[in-house]
């Protein structure tokens, strides 16, 4: 009996030592890479924001000048809507909203919708999606120029009733074999434009002022 207990104790101790050793190694690696990973993430975010706004069109730290809002109509997933604000000399240039299209062919399509302060679209990009490879994934800018067609559009171009894919009487192309995916994206972009039209002034309130407001 005593022997079994002793063996269990030794086994447990060895296991504990290995757990501690493994954790230590992982901790060291994390410490060594944390800064670089954070920098990568920041750079990746900046790259995707800069894809929508020409460099030099703004002069603020866009990735830090943000709002977190609760907007269920644009974020059906319940997560907060992040708004990145671009300004030049303090004047609003554009806002980039992290809209989600909840009605894709398979799950949420996460978008970045950039809207200039005059209400025209600076551009739209897909951040993440689970659409069918080879069909619905044509919404990615690397695969198809379709998503670039949003740039310059607004609620007046096309007029509101034409904001849809061609099959629904709108002006936007669908893809061969995939209508649901572009339909979801077009609808989400339109909702974002409507939201921007109604909330434009509130979206550009400077961060400091907003803090006082609360």
């Amino acid at each position, binding site marked *: 009996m005593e022997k079994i207990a002793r*063996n269990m104790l*030794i*086994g447990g101790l*060895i*296991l504990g030592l*290995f*757990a501690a*050793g*493994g*954790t230590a*190694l*992982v901790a060291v*690696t*994390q410490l060594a*890479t944390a800064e*670089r*990973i954070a920098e*990568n*993430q920041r750079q*990746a975010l900046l790259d995707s924001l800069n894809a929508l706004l020409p460099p030099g069109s703004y002069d603020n730290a866009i990735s830090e000048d943000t709002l977190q809002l609760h907007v269920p109509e644009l974020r059906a997933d319940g997560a907060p809507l992040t708004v990145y604000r671009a300004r030049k000399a303090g004047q609003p240039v554009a806002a980039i909203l992290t809209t989600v299209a909840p009605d894709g062919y398979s799950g949420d399509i996460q978008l970045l919708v950039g809207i200039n302060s005059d209400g025209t679209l600076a551009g739209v990009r897909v951040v993440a999606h689970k659409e*069918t*490879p*080879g*069909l619905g994934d044509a919404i990615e800018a*690397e695969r198809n120029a379709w998503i670039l067609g949003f740039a310059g559009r607004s609620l007046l171009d096309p007029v509101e009733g034409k904001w849809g894919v061609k099959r629904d009487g709108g002006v936007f192309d669908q893809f061969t074999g995939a209508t649901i995916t572009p339909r979801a994206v077009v609808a989400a972009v339109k909702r974002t434009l409507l939201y921007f039209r109604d909330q434009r002034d509130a979206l550009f309130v400077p961060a400091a002022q907003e803090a006082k407001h609360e």
Partner: protein
Amino acid sequence: MSDPSLRKISLDGLWHNNPALVQVLGLCPLLAVTNTTVNGLGLGMATLVVMLTANIAVSLIRNLVRPEIRIPVFILVIASLVTMVELLMRAYFFELHKILGIFIPLIVTNCVILGRAEAFASKHSVGHAAVDGLMMGLGFAGVLILLGAMRELLGSGTLFAQAHLMFGEFGHHLTFSLGSDYHGFLLAILPPGAFLGLGLLIAVKNIIDARMAEKAAAAPAKPEAPAAAVGDEAAV
């Protein structure tokens, strides 16, 4: 247990006892990520690094660990290594990591790695364990790359698309395309294409093995028949 020759270890890993084609282990990541060559290459390299280091580590500690706790200890070692590889990938191959994302942590549960740790590294010297890890990893990565290339070529009509995620600017020159006229064979990229592709690869390997066995039987003077090499792995 005596160490087998390095030549035999290498041939086993690459061909006779290939982790993907013969042991048919680690299929979840194998089938899931191989829709492009670069994805296959990325996961293949990550698995190779983990396998090599896990085999070395397990072989180093093989006399410290009591048999009753060896499995949890091996898993601890493998999990620590995988987490380190993941952190390093996020630091140095950030874009690629975004694509391979969830499959990197899943390397922990890739049974090939625990399988080699338990069946080989825990019983052999460090040098042999390292060669075994390297060769098994190469065998696994080779199948990942081949399957990825097959599916990408058939499915999208390209090879090494997005290679710049791994190789930087140089990667753009690696990308080969059949041209924009090729519309792609969707099935090859979808999950069924993975199963069909792997099935074809296994079949081709078996045909080659059968041919080699025939040749060996026709020329009985040659002592090393591949069938024997496959046979003794059955004990593992």
